[in-house]
């Protein structure tokens, strides 16, 4: 090992300029790979941060209207979802669904506080709703499990409604609101994302169900999905879901209109696909740069091997096996590539950290909300490891052909060379 390193050191020292020039090509290749990956990650991360305003892996299911006659019942019947759907989803689709959230809407209410009043829709939800819909709390808390269990009359209101109903300022949390004569306690205020016009008031699902006498009915069944990675898988899932639901509500299993499915997960998949493409594109760009560096190393090794023909001839005359010559040349190539590749990688990482500390924190106000266009533009360990493996393999390949060239000639011809 030490002998090999010494051989390599000797060879490199005899052609410093050439080695440095080659090394520069490799180093810049690795530098670009890392920086491009870092920048790519920055863009991708910013997607995720900005899109955090929407719930992207949620599917919402509403009752629809049948379009096909089934078991003697004519088409045109409305389907009303109920708690059986919740159970069915949990039981049958647990592999694909990590959270099931039934909700109830009670519209046409009037909410009042002192002299202030306005029309309102109460939405009965459970605690997971906040996470699934990216509800951002300004103060207080969202509906919790105790609210749900004790059917408390708790309500979470938007910051806009809070301003309207409590014009004198002060914290609305803990205050009472009157919904058509029924008093509710404000437990939290959420930030209105201005994406919908209905200033929804959130209350516990159980409370809404009982107070407004809704029995087993639900308005909407929302779920967070997982393990559904392609369009076709999503289609299959929806088909299966419709079929399962048709058993409960007696409609034709292939009647896709009987349920109204609002799929946010689909757009999420689109985004993930874009991310993957971006990621791949950056890798390809970096690799192409690296390839030019490696071709450079290969060229240099070829020249070096030609220059050292006689030396190799001497070595072979005194008993060097061809393989030991091949190994020597390849080791030299790997060391040059790895050394400079590593240097380029380090510089790339430093540059990424520099980007992170400068543009990484800048935000851009696009009116509706603030967007960050570059978030954490750095690379992870696995990228660095992959890059390292690539350098070593590239170095070995760059050395292989010149090395084979070196032992192709007969020793006697090499000695004359």
């Amino acid at each position, binding site marked *: 090992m030490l002998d090999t390193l010494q051989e390599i050191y000797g060879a490199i020292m005899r052609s410093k300029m050439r080695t440095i020039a080659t090394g520069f090509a490799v180093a810049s290749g690795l530098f670009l790979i890392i920086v491009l990956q870092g920048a790519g990650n920055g863009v991708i991360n910013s997607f995720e941060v900005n899109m955090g305003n929407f719930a992207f892996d949620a599917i919402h299911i509403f009752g629809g209207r049948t379009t096909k006659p089934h078991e003697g019942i004519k088409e045109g019947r409305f389907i009303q979802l109920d708690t059986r759907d919740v159970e069915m989803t949990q039981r049958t689709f647990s592999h694909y669904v990590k959270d099931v959230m039934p909700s109830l809407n009670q519209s046409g209410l009037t909410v009042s506080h002192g002299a202030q009043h306005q029309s309102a829709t109460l939405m009965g939800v459970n605690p997971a709703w906040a996470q699934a819909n990216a509800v951002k709390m300004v103060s207080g808390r969202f509906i919790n499990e105790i609210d749900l269990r004790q059917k408390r009359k708790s309500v979470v209101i938007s910051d806009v409604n809070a301003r309207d109903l409590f014009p004198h300022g002060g914290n609305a949390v803990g205050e009472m609101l009157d919904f058509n004569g029924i008093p509710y306690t404000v437990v939290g205020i959420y930030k209105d994302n201005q994406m919908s016009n209905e200033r929804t008031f959130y209350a516990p699902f159980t409370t809404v169900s009982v107070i407004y006498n809704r029995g087993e009915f639900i308005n909407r069944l929302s779920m967070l999905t997982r393990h559904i990675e392609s369009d076709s898988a999503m289609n299959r899932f929806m088909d299966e879901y419709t079929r399962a639901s048709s058993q409960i509500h007696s409609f034709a299993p292939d009647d896709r209109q009987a349920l109204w499915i609002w799929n946010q997960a689909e757009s999420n998949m689109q985004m993930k696909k874009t991310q993957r493409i971006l990621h791949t594109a950056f890798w390809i760009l970096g690799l192409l740069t690296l390839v030019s560096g490696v071709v450079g190393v290969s060229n240099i090794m070829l020249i070096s091997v030609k220059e050292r023909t006689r030396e190799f001839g001497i*070595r072979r005359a*005194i008993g060097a*096996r061809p393989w030991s010559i091949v190994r020597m040349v390849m080791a030299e190539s790997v060391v040059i590539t790895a050394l400079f590749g590593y240097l380029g990688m380090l510089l790339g990482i430093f540059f990424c950290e520099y980007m992170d500390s400068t543009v990484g924190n800048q935000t851009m106000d696009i009116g509706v909300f603030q967007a960050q266009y570059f978030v954490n533009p750095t690379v992870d360990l696995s990228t660095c490891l992959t890059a390292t493996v690539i350098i070593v393999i590239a170095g070995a390949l760059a050395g292989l052909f010149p090395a084979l060239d070196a032992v192709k000639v*007969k020793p006697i011809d090499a000695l004359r060379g």
Partner: protein
Amino acid sequence: MIRLTNIHKTYQGAQPLHVLKGINLHIKKGEFVAVMGASGSGKSTLLNILGILDSYDEGEYMLAGTPIRNLSETRAADYRNRMIGFIFQSFNLISFKNAVENVALPLFYQGVGRRKRNQLALEYLDRLGLKDWAHHYPGELSGGQKQRVAIARALITQPQIILADEPTGALDSQTSLEVMEILKDLHRQGLTIVVVTHESGVAYQTEKIVHIKDGVIERIEENLNPDANPFGIKTQMK
């Protein structure tokens, strides 16, 4: 030690060149032989075949009881390493290695550890009077010193035969004398030595002179008194 039977060698090319046209030669263990001939006579080709540096087309070559025929490069390298010591006209030292490293190199290819091979190399350099030059690079040595380093390198693996290709060709007469004295000394110690030369002054210091002309052995001359050759060794080398 060496038995050549009807060796033929043709260099393929635009004009195929038939260099060796049936060489029969027997060299016994402990013999000191010179192969003599004009340039182009085929004497270097013969030496290259003896040294397994080159192949032959026809015939049979036995080296120390081992048939040398169609060897893989790896086997050939191992035989060269263990059975043959080379001394070249142009020394063929590796310029970026010092004397010790050059001498130790054959042992490196035997897998001998660094400390042990460098120690052995120093011993051999000492025997050739180069102890003080052990850490000098070839560029810092005179021609005679370089050839002595090369001889140390040839000896370090304790080979069966020493093959010397014009060992004095690049040396002045005084240094040539010294080198020949070393070879004679090695012969007295029982080594088998084959020297290729075109200088009769060198050839007549050996015991047996093989004259080659146009690819065949012209005659083999026994030289019973190497120290009293017709040209007078002490006075005229070239």
